[in-house]
């Protein structure tokens, strides 16, 4: 699975980081980013949770 954060939509709620710090980081200004090239299978469920909890709809699954 590949996912990305749309930097124009992200407003720094940090819900993704709270749910899956293994997949996301958030910088000092609240900008989230994906820190893995591929989401390992055991973390896919967490990635989907992050997508479903982002208040800005800023996270998308690029390929499943």
């Amino acid at each position, binding site marked *: 699975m590949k996912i990305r954060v749309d930097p124009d939509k992200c407003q720094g709620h940090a819900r993704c980081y709270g749910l899956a710090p293994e997949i996301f980081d958030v910088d000092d200004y609240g900008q989230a980013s994906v820190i893995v090239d591929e989401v390992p299978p055991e973390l896919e469920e967490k990635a989907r949770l992050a997508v479903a909890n982002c*208040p800005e709809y800023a996270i998308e699954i690029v390929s499943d």
Partner: protein
Amino acid sequence: MAQTAPVSDWASDFDVMDPQYLADPFSIWDSLRETCPIPHTNRRKSSWMPLRYDDVTAIAHDIEHFSSLKVAVIPADEDEDPNENFDGPNLEYGLPPISADPPLHTWTRRLLLPWFSHKRVDSYVPLTRDLCRHLLDGFSDAGHADAAGDYAQQIPVRVIAGILGVSPDLSDTFTGWVRDILEFADDAERRQRGAEGLLNYFLSQLEERRSRPGDDLLSELLTTEVDGKPVDDGIVLGMAALVLIAGVDTTWSAIGSSLWHLASHPEDRRRLVAEPGLMPTAIEELLRAYAPVTMAREVTQDFEYHGCPMKKGDKVLMNFPAANRDPDAFADPDIVQLDRAHNRHVAFGSGIHRCAGSNLARMELQVALEEWLTRIPEFSLAEGEQITWAGGQVRGPRVLPVVFP
């Protein structure tokens, strides 16, 4: 306090300070969402109040039609000078970035955000935990406490004082000023007193930092440069005041409401004690169900929004708490489900004004509940004792008597 006539028609004459709304806004939202999801009032000022998730978030993102220059839910009189007796720098920009639109919003927000990054917030955890334990030491053997006044109210103000670099000994005074400004805003005299007290205090603190800078937020604002120039004194003062105002009533209300929930829902309380790993998910659910903050926007031009004829200068009350209870966005929204997996709540707002202190608020709420539940796992509302709720801009319990073994 201005007395307002009882509301008989919530669709065309709502009042967020009405006793019925303070006691139970939830059922009012539920019936309005079905019949009139954007009610209007002419009380105080022509104002609209979107209640659906999609409307609240759409308006929060439409900064062209909805400005943040005036964010107070209870507006001041048009001809009232908010700073009549204040002899300091010009506060024409209010409290940026909350009361600002881009571009002022953008750069003032960037100055504040690093102070509330998750890494920085992690460094405030030990202090917060010690503070909670110390407060619990004060009453955990007594068998009863005011969970709002003795506990919730005491936590965020002291953490924020540490960040600002001002004395935590003045916490009760800070809390008084902030409540005057936010909760008693219908009382012009009281609002004025709170604003003057707070502004004059920060003015003297800034003067002190100018000669003896420290490693606190106030000192950084004074020494930082933007585009090669120091930040205007009025903007520094507004930002300092904002951090205190926004960091006190809000988080205290969230902690208080959460303790009210756990006191009155023993099955949830026992589950949280038995499954501490559930805490982060539970925190988000408590924030959703008891989101404390309603903000305002100002309509920038006459236009029609979903059939509502909005006029330039009208107020829009951004009812994030009501959005969080919208059945179109959340299954069984009035039921607290501590393990709710899909929870796109907007307790911290939405769009460019997302609460800059959200990481701090979450941490304080989590540490406050963890420490309370560790020390007092069993507690309930004290029978026959009055609970009082504040509402309007910030909703939460102000007196919350609880008993425990």
